[in-house]
């Protein structure tokens, strides 16, 4: 009886568990059983691994072979276990000189000729593996791009099984690897593993910029405030008034991601199963993500879903960035309502029979909407043709609870003048200044911006002084709800931060009240 061991990782959502692959050669007739709850793709691993091992010229044990994936009660999915199974099986008959089972991980799918193919979710898997004490990981060369982002463990790229067993120090001489596919380069592995882990300033790519916008000063001011305080925004206006144009430029004035945030966002992207997406990471990964799902999106597409392993949805792809819902009133109501819980908690849990997958979803929401089906209820180039019932039905798509969470409601009109706005880089600088002010105020806590501070605590610890009477008056006259009061309070602080004031002044508070707007922003009769 001979035993071989190797480690792989089983992912479910963003959380992973290290799986011990045990191979045992028993004294029975040749056969191969793979146990430990594999799914279909994983069960087929038997055939791939056997062919690959034989095709690179190594011996396959001609005995009863049992491979167990432990913990046996955990369901395992996908083809990423191939490498670990191959190494566990080979370890029953061969000796490897430099292989310590304990903290070495194998990720990758095998081709029948022994080529190692890329799989999705490698970055997410490696981050989890590092947390579980893995020190070294062998990954497919084609996944190398995304793995360059992490430095918590040693990454060794492998192009084919021959390459892998040689790196592990197998004690037999192997012939040169021959791929069945002549287009495959067999030995071109770039050894340059260093990537500049900082946002470079001499980035020449085109990004939409606010200096291309004319005469929307108020609107741009509103968006700057939103970026500075992390407030959600609603833009209402007639068709063609530039709502979409504004929203696309919004992500450009948000602060760049930190290394940890960039890693987290990149890991989420790899979980969508697009392994080549990050083939050559650039400083682009430090741009806050911008996710703009079309309004026919389903609930699963929005919050994440799919079977058997849930994949992150649009809100998680917008994590640390912007979720832009254009034509917000055209979305299905359940889709819009599904945003409420993630807006509060900053994460979403997707429950499936196989388990619960949690994805982070800490995004900044930007909604753009027409006020009515024809779009001209608030004025514009044409007269509105919608009847009252149509307007009410349209408005009711954006429910009170959802709108309550949107701090800034802006009405977009025709451009007031032809004055060109400040450029995105200047605005971004203002945003950073304002955020730094907020950070130094909350330095004992871990709130990074005003909207993250619980309302009660903000009012107790950071009172806004005499200017609060303006907010009190608005509340007493019924213009602000209790929550509206709290939100305007946060906005006041953000505006004070932007204006460089140590405490919100009367002007700051009145500006906050202006940008808070009405509680039924789509209704032309409410001003």
């Amino acid at each position, binding site marked *: 009886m001979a035993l071989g061991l190797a480690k792989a990782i089983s992912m479910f959502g963003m959380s992973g568990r290290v799986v011990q692959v045990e191979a045992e050669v028993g*004294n*029975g*007739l*040749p056969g191969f059983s793979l146990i430990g709850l594999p799914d279909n793709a994983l069960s087929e691993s038997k055939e791939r691994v056997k062919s690959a091992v034989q095709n690179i010229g190594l011996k396959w044990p*001609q*005995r009863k072979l049992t491979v167990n994936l432990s913990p046996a009660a955990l369901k395992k999915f996908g083809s990423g276990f191939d490498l670990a199974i191959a190494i566990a099986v080979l370890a029953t008959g061969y000796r490897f000189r430099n292989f310590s089972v304990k903290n070495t991980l194998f990720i990758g799918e095998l081709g029948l000729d022994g080529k190692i193919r890329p799989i999705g979710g490698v970055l997410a898997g490696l981050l989890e593996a590092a947390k579980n004490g893995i020190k070294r990981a062998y990954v497919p060369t084609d996944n190398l791009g995304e793995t360059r982002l992490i430095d918590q463990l040693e990454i060794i790229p492998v192009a084919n099984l021959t390459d892998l067993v040689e790196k592990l120090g197998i004690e037999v001489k192997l012939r040169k690897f021959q791929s069945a596919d002549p287009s495959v380069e067999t030995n071109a592995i770039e050894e340059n593993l260093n990537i500049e882990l900082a946002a470079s300033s001499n980035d020449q790519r085109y990004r939409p910029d606010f200096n291309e916008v004319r005469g929307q000063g108020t609107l741009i001011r509103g968006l700057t405030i939103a970026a500075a305080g992390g407030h959600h925004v609603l833009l209402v206006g007639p068709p063609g008034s530039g709502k979409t144009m504004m929203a696309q430029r919004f992500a450009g004035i948000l602060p760049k991601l930190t290394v940890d945030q960039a890693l987290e966002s990149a890991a989420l992207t790899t979980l969508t199963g697009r392994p080549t997406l990050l083939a050559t990471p650039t400083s682009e990964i430090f741009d806050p993500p911008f996710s703009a799902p079309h309004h026919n999106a389903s609930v699963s597409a929005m919050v994440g879903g799919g079977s058997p392993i849930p994949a992150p949805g649009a809100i998680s792809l917008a994590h640390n960035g912007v979720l832009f819902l254009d034509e917000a009133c055209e979305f299905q109501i359940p889709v819009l309502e599904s945003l409420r819980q993630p807006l509060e908690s900053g994460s979403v849990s997707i429950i499936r029979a196989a388990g619960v997958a949690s994805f982070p979803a800490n995004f900044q929401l930007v909604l753009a909407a027409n006020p009515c089906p024809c779009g001209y209820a608030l004025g514009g180039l044409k007269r509105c043709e919608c009847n009252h019932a149509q307007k009410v039905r349209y408005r009711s798509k954006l429910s009170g609870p959802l709108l309550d969470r949107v701090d800034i409601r802006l009405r977009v009109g025709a451009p007031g003048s032809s004055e060109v706005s400040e450029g995105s880089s200047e605005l971004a600088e203002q945003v950073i200044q304002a955020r730094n002010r907020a950070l130094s105020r909350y330095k004992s806590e871990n709130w990074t911006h005003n909207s993250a501070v619980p309302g009660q605590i903000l009012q107790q610890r950071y009172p806004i002084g005499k200017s609060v009477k303006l907010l009190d008056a608005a509340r007493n006259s019924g213009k602000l709800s209790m929550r509206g009061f709290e939100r305007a309070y946060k906005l006041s602080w953000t505006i004070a931060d932007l204006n460089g004031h140590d405490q919100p002044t009367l002007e700051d508070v009145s500006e906050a009240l202006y940008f808070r707007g009405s509680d039924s922003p789509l209704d032309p009769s409410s001003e």
Partner: protein
Amino acid sequence: MQSNQALGRTGETLAAEYLENHGYAVIDRNWHCRTGEIDIVATDQNYLVFVEVKTRSNTSFGHPFESVTTSKVARMRRLANEWCLAKASPGFRIRLDAISVLFCSGQVKIEHLKAIS
């Protein structure tokens, strides 16, 4: 075809010698009945061992053991039963074994798998 049968015969003879050398007593060879044939019947202390011998001149059709499938093992079990009925053998415990005889580059390689079921 003739040469394959001859190869099989040679393999069975080599397997029987191998068993004798390892302390087995071969008591029957190529026993037939309607169900099929048992290659070798031998005793090993208080075991009655039924042996399937597979002989190959190369492994291009796979290892000899790979052709011993579960249905063949099931048939061996039925054959063992019929052998016992025909040649009463009280006091023995039954075991099914497989022996592979591989002729490769002038050498003979014999492998013996015990208790395969």
